[in-house]
C-alpha cells in the first residue's frame, strides 16, 4: 500500500538533491537544471496531495508551476547565452556582474 507519506518523502529527497545541485555546481546551466529538479519535486507534492485529498486543485497548481518553470527556463537560458557572449564563461564563480 503506497501512502501519501511515500510520495512526500520521495519529493523531499528530490528537493534536497536539487538544493545540493544549486549549492555545489558551478556550471550555470546545471544550476538551472537543479532548479527544475526542485520545481518538479514540488509538482510531485502537489499531485500527491491532489490525489489523497480528493481535490483537483493540486493538479491545476502543478500546471501553473510548469508554466512558470517554462518561462523561467526561457529567460534563464537567454541570460546564460548573453553572459556567455559577454564574459566567455558560464562558471558562476567568474560571473561577478552583481557582486559587491
Amino acid at each position, binding site marked *: 500500500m503506497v501512502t501519501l507519506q511515500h510520495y512526500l518523502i520521495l519529493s523531499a*529527497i528530490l528537493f*534536497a538533491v536539487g538544493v545540493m545541485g544549486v549549492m555545489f555546481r*558551478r556550471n550555470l*546551466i546545471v544550476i538551472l537544471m537543479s532548479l527544475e*529538479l526542485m520545481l518538479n519535486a514540488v509538482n510531485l507534492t502537489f499531485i500527491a496531495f491532489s490525489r489523497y485529498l480528493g*481535490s483537483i486543485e493540486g*493538479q491545476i497548481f502543478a500546471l501553473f508551476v510548469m*508554466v512558470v518553470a517554462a518561462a523561467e527556463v526561457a529567460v534563464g*537560458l537567454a541570460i546564460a547565452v548573453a553572459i556567455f557572449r559577454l564574459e566567455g564563461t558560464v562558471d558562476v564563480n567568474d560571473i561577478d556582474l552583481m557582486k559587491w
Partner: protein
Amino acid sequence: MEALIFYVLAAITVVSAFCVVLLRRPIHNVLFMILMMIGLAGLFILLQAEFVAMVQLIVYAGAVMVLFLFVIMLLNLESLSFPDDPRAVRWWGGMVLALGLLVLLIPVFKAFVPHVVGTLTQQNSSVLSNTQVIAKELFTTYLLPFEIASVLLLAAIIGAVVLARRR
C-alpha cells in the same frame, strides 16, 4: 503491484536526480534529467493525474530539455573546462544544507494525516475524465490566473528574444 511500480519509479527518479547533480558532462546531466522526468510522469499516472503526466512529457521532457540541449550545443560547453578550485567548502555546504532540509522536512511530512476533503474520490475519478475535470476547473474558477499565465509566457518570450538578440 502498485507498491512495486512505485518503488521502481522512485528508484529511477532518485538515481537519475543524483546523476543530474553529480555527473560532470552537461550532456549527461540533460539526458538523466529527461529520464527523471519520464519517471516522474509515470508517478503522476500512478497518482491518476494523466493530463499532468502527458504535459510533463510534452512540455518538460520534450520542449524544455531540448532547449537545454540546444543551449549546451550552442555554447559548446563540452570544450569548456572548469579547473579545480577549493570546491570542498561548497560541496560540504551543499551536503549539510540538503541533509538539514531533509531532517526538517521528513518529520513534518510523516506527521501529515490525509483525509478526503474534495469530491474527486477513488470511485468518482474513474468515472470522470481527468482532463475534463481539470478543464472545467481551469476555465471557471481559475480563469483569471490562466489568462495571467499566458501573459507571463508572452513576456518571457519577448524577454528571451531581447536578451539573446545579437547587438
